[in-house]
């Protein structure tokens, strides 16, 4: 090879070498290209959407056909303040009551009361009664709502009414507290309150999306193909002279 040819070849190599300056691809780095992720999602859009649809459908089916409807019953009690002879509410007792509300809410679900309720309603244990009960308190008031949700509407009503009865009796007998009033006694309702279709569908969709996200992340990170010109030039440090699109080779139809 002539000297001149060697020099020219060297110049050409310098041109390629300058491209290598960009080739700072460290093996320990993981490069995530957002455009790649977007293209991948676009190419697999139908499959990904199908996963979400399947999970939504499954949660719909489970909610509608597998899960048993739940029936609820609610009763409301009120901590009444003492009244003076003239009929006005006593300020001190009002203050005391507002501090008592949280205590009352805790006391309602204590074992002593729950056990008695369990006996009265025929449930297995105090724990099973507690699991169906929801105690709520309207903010800045002394109104406490006791709700029970079970699969039997009559049982729900019975649990609430028994809880309220046992509670009031216990407070009266043991603590001499007499200022608890039943505002709304629990009623029997045959309208199911659960399971919540919307909530379950949302959960199903969320699970589907998480699975999709995991799949997309894995597929993009483990993709070992060189897909386009920019990627090739950056990764290899040599210029790409042309891109030949995919075709069906003759004879291989």
């Amino acid at each position, binding site marked *: 090879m002539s000297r001149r040819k060697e020099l020219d070849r060297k110049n050409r190599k310098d041109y*390629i070498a300058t491209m290598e300056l960009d080739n700072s691809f460290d093996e320990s780095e993981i490069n995530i290209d957002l455009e790649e992720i977007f293209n991948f999602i676009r190419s697999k859009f139908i499959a990904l959407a199908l996963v979400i649809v399947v999970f939504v459908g499954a949660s719909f089916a489970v909610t509608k056909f597998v899960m048993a409807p739940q029936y609820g019953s609610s009763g409301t009690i009120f901590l009444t303040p003492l009244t003076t002879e003239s009929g006005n509410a006593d300020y001190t007792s009002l203050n005391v009551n507002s501090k008592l509300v949280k205590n009352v809410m805790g006391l309602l679900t204590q074992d002593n009361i729950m056990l008695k309720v369990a006996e009265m309603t025929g449930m297995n244990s105090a724990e099973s009664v507690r699991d169906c009960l929801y105690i709520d308190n309207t903010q800045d008031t002394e109104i406490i709502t006791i709700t029970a949700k079970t699969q039997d509407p009559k049982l729900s009503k019975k649990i609430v009414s028994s809880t309220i009865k046992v509670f009031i009796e216990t407070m009266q007998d043991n603590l001499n507290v007499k200022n608890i009033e039943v505002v709304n006694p629990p009623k029997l309702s045959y309208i199911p309150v659960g399971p919540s279709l919307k909530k379950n569908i949302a959960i199903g969709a969320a699970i589907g999306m998480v699975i999709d996200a995991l799949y997309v992340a894995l597929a993009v990170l483990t993709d070992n193909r060189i897909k386009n010109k920019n990627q090739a030039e950056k990764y*290899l440090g040599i210029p790409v002279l042309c891109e030949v699109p995919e075709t069906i080779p003759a004879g291989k139809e």
Partner: protein
Amino acid sequence: MAKRFNFSRRKANQFDLNEVYRQLRTNIEFMEFDDKVQAINITSTTKNEGKTTISLNLARMFAAKYQGVLLIDCDLRNPSIHKQINKSNSQGLSNILSELSENLNISYREEVFHLQFAPEENPFDVITTGTKVPNPTEVLSSNRFRKFMEIARQQYKYIIIDCPPIGYVADAIPVSNLCDGTLYVISCKEKHKKQVRNAVNDLKRTGVNILGAVLNKVDISSQKYGYGYYYGDEK
């Protein structure tokens, strides 16, 4: 002897493969700078990346513009050019090399095929691998092959050589050293990013002049411009 060949068919949409190969030819011509690129060899990392198709089409494209183009199949272990042009491989390069003499006129040898893609294009010569040899690497590194290349350079304007993949054997390296430039074919469907990089780095280290890469089997659906809809070619 002229024969029409349809090397590949379209998958979808309107694009013209001819334009792609024409662009490749133009880019190679552009890379000549002061020194002419007369002999080009084509290799890749693994099998089935499209080297043979690309070398055939590139030879055809050069022949469309120039007279005196030679295409040689140097993949002595796995010859494929004769399959694509539907010819016999009983005689070819190995036979020519075994009978090499100073006054060899390549074009007149009976082992050489003359192809013409279209009547308006020039014909070009094709040499298949020929009789199978037990020592391909030695044949390609031999002085005979070097002499053959010298003779070919005098008799042809452009020489295109289809080489075996360097990921498997080192046959392409001695051939690259006899050529003015190497084209590296990369299939976008193969999952071999790291192997490609290692192979390209190995090639660079041997002092070979890499002209550039050719990306094959590119997915055009994700590109907005380019080959999805070809300008001026609405049919």
